[in-house]
């Protein structure tokens, strides 16, 4: 954000307010102002942003409550567009939608309510960080090159990069403890002018940070969620969406991914959601241990909390604030995962502002630019070759929750989102009602990345992973058809082979897909164990199918073999290795094959 920076410029009084309606203010005297410039409104210095310009007149969306503001009040220009501050100290922070740290807001206000007009610096400007130079005096550097490193948390080495648009020869570089505004290096340009570099940079939130090029994603983000990783995976650098009615478990699913996925940095945006939910994350993350690194999760996390009752314009900005920070860490070469909960609230904020601007509405009152803004946002995801001469790659995975009214996906926000995301986790109210969690519907959901991962799966997990997965999915498909028949004519009419399909599909649902997010052991299953469990279930089907056609059976004999009951327990075998699963699969094989002999 702009605070400290603008203070040094001094704000200039530009015009006067003409009209106030809710979060929207119109003011005159703005002929020199830029679109998306940050302004301060009234003597209370409320933070605002210019979103429309007509000659001398500007429409300003105000990020704070506007009660008590009226025509004739002054408007101050800052000369800067809406930007975020990027520097060591971002991690472990909790911000509002315009990057004001909520902890500082509480300290400055001395109150548990969010007061207006408080300025708070996004990162600690005084704190000294140990800066270790990587570049040497005389090196020729270009934009994106790493000048030095700072150990930001136990987990993350913060790379201080040459800002986009900069470059030249390193004229001087320091080593030691500095705060973020102190000079750590100088660059000499070709024309002999010198640029001073500090650890603090700004970047406008509405523009994507530059990269060298995008790369085709081929590696999955591992989340430990069985239905996500095996059935509907998302790529590192992919875009996915979780639509679902309330109570279907969007937040629990997203938090599960945020907790356990193998990204190095998590940006979690609570956009127009519940205050208590953000508190839960704040309470929980410092105590939860990251399964991939053994450190508390908070050390890799940045939270943006703009709850539903906080100003609506700041909610609109919050997703941009979050994604810009996420891109900054991507540029250092990290895998970043961003969760936005919920993008519907972001869209509603756009609708509210648009309505007050008296724009011509599109579908359901949403502005006509809803789908282009949505597409722009998700397109900022990706795995990229970053700027800089060392050819680093970094990825940004974006997962957005969508809250369709009444769970009806035909509404504009869901539709705009589905067009630009490639993984779709369809949360199902019926499954939630039956307490099947995660309530990801296995028939409607899809992942267009799955094909990209086939090589990865074969190489990293098992040669037959792809086939096992395909068999399991087709069994669920067949189950839904068979269940319709059962509903009409009863179970007796089915052949043994069909009943075997039903039985195995039930195992897949109850013993594989069902996962208890509140059980600390069950909440995370690594991919190789997921494969072990699923392969065991599919073995039961494949061997059973071969047996079932050889002789006349009472179907109950199939379910009476000892290994049958053990399937339900497979997910609790935390210590099992590949060999243990193979032993179990052998057991299934021999027990079922033995049945043929007994009956014949």
């Amino acid at each position, binding site marked *: 954000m702009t605070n400290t920076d603008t203070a040094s410029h001094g704000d200039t009084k530009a015009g006067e307010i003409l009209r106030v309606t809710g979060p929207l203010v119109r003011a005159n005297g703005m002929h020199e102002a830029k679109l998306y410039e940050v302004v301060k409104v009234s003597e209370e210095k409320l933070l605002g942003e210019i979103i429309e310009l007509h000659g001398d007149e500007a429409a300003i969306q105000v990020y704070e409550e506007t009660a008590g503001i009226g025509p004739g009040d002054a408007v101050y220009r800052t000369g800067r567009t809406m930007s975020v501050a990027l520097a060591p100290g971002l991690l472990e922070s909790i911000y509002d939608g315009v990057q004001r740290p909520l902890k500082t807001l509480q300290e400055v206000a001395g109150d548990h309510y969010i007061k207006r007009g408080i300025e708070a610096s996004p990162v600690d400007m005084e704190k000294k960080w140990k800066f270790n130079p990587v570049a040497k005096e005389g090196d020729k550097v270009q934009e994106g090159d790493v000048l030095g490193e700072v150990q930001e948390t136990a987990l993350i080495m913060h790379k201080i990069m040459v800002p986009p648009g900069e470059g030249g020869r390193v004229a001087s570089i320091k080593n030691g403890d500095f705060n973020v505004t102190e000079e750590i290096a100088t660059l000499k340009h070709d024309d002999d002018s010198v640029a001073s570099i500090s650890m603090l940079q700004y970047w406008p939130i509405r523009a994507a940070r530059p990269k060298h090029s995008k790369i085709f994603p081929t590696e999955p983000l591992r989340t430990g969620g069985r239905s996500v990783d095996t059935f509907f995976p998302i790529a590192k650098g992919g875009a996915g969406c979780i639509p679902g009615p309330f109570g279907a478990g969007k937040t629990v699913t997203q938090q599960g991914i945020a907790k356990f996925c193998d990204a190095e940095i998590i940006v979690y945006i609570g956009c127009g959601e519940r205050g208590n939910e953000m508190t839960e994350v704040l309470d929980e993350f410092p105590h939860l241990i990251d399964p991939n690194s053994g450190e508390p999760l908070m050390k890799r996390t940045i939270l943006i909390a703009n709850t539903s009752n906080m100003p609506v314009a700041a909610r609109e900005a919050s997703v941009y604030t979050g994604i810009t920070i996420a891109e900054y860490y991507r540029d250092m070469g990290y895998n970043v995962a961003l969760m936005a909960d919920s993008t519907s609230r972001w869209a509603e904020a756009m609708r509210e502002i648009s309505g007050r601007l008296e724009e011509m509405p599109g579908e359901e*009152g949403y502005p006509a630019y809803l789908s282009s803004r949505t597409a722009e946002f998700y397109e900022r995801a990706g795995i990229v070759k970053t700027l800089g001469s060392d050819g680093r790659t970094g990825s940004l995975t974006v997962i957005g929750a969508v809250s369709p009214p009444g769970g009806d996906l035909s509404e504009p926000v869901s539709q705009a989102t589905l067009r630009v995301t490639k993984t779709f986790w369809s949360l199902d109210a019926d499954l939630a009602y039956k307490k099947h969690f995660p309530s990801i519907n296995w028939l409607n959901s899809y992942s267009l990345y799955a094909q990209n991962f086939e090589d990865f799966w074969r190489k990293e997990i098992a040669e037959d992973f792809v086939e096992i997965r395909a068999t399991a999915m087709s069994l669920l498909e067949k189950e839904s058809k068979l269940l319709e028949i059962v509903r009409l004519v009863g179970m007796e009419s089915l052949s043994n082979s069909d009943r075997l399909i039903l039985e195995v599909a039930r195992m897949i649902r109850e013993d594989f897909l069902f996962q208890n997010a509140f059980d600390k052991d069950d909440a995370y299953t690594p991919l190789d164990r997921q494969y072990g469990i699923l392969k065991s279930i599919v073995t039961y089907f494949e061997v059973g199918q071969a047996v079932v056609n050889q002789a006349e059976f009472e179907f109950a004999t199939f379910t009476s073999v000892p290994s049958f009951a053990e399937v339900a327990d497979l997910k609790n075998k935390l210590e099992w290795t590949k060999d243990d699963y193979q032993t179990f699969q052998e057991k299934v094989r021999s027990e079922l094959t033995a049945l043929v002999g007994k009956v014949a």
Partner: protein
Amino acid sequence: MSNKEYTDISSIAGPLMVVEGVEGVKYEELVEVNVTGESAPRFGKVLDISKDKAVVQMFAPTTGMTAEGTRARFRGETLKLGVSEDMLGRVFNGVGEVADGGPEIVAEERRDIAGEPINPYSREFPNDFIQTGIGSIDVMNTLVRGQKLPIFSGAGLPHSRLAAQIARQASVKDGSDFAIVFATLGVSFEEAEYFRREFEEAGALERSVLFINTAADPVVERVSTPRMALTTAEYLAFEKGKHVLVILTDMTNYCEALREVSSARKEVPGRRGYPGYLYTDLSTIYERAGRIKGKQGTITQIPILTMPDDDKTHPVPDLTGYITEGQFVISRELYRKGVFPPVDVQGSLSRLWSAGVGEGKTRDDHSALKDQLFASYATGREVRELAVVLGEASLDDTDRAHLKFADEFEREFVGQGEFENRSVEESLDIGWKLLAMLPQTSLKRVKKEQIEQYMPKS
């Protein structure tokens, strides 16, 4: 602050009035309107302010107002409510005026009724179990202090009686009582009177504050009534250290009032004519619940709403469900069967249940027992449907046991009656007693040791 009176009223339409030629007026400012021949002023607030024109939303009806001779005075402040601990035991109307014939309240403090958002960083996560004395809530969908959990009901269902039962019985382990802030929004006189008497008879009136807006009162009043109630609650909770239970009934009427104002302003409507900002507006009510670090008091909210045509996807229940931490759903089916309280156990949800249960809060077996009761009841209901299609003869013994379990569960566990106040331990024990009807092999969610310890031996 301006003491100037404006008389140039250019239009009065519905709840809106437009005043011309104004100067120095601020957004959301309180407006005092004097109508010729009336002694008491009517009030309104500024909704839209341009250079010389103010759109005012009236809190009182505009009936009888004239464009000529009506005088508007802008008060230089937003709408405030004088709050005091003496409000306990008193009854107010929908705009916060004394309505029980008693003396005026001497305000200890005057507060803006719009409230301010609580800093998420300053919040403390709710984790104290509230015992409502109702098994289907305490065991299955546990309520915790600082939660907002609405009751989704329908026309003709006994949500008032359920709310009254909760208000009567709610207590916490440390024995402290709740103060109750109760607001009616556009309900019938009988319903409002029912609550008043209930509180009186239960001896709860002296720890309650009532705001009564009935269907006969002006629609626009309703927009501020819940905010008056919550302003009072915040004062009692965070200044006076009380645990406050806020009950608001019926939120559907509130939303309709909001729709009326929106349509008078000719705003672009969202779904079903409700304004596009309905979600944001509702959140400024529901989010005023919770706990705050370093404060002793808490606010727990139970808003009640009726779903038009029992439709959960209607904008009012839909948007409410997205903000609140779960919902209690009242089941028409159970009510018809004569089960009281008719809580739809499966359709209800408390998102914060896990924060309120377990050793030291309720009992160590609570979570597992709850899961088992859910699973067994779900199976029982599936069997019931199957029996309808295929006949009871097609059921095996396990199925029949589950069918019987589902019936007994509804009759004995859920249908405890309006005046039985069960401790959570009693409710848990009844759960175990019912599970004893089922074969032990089908009890997969509870551990063997728990069965040993808690299940009554037959």
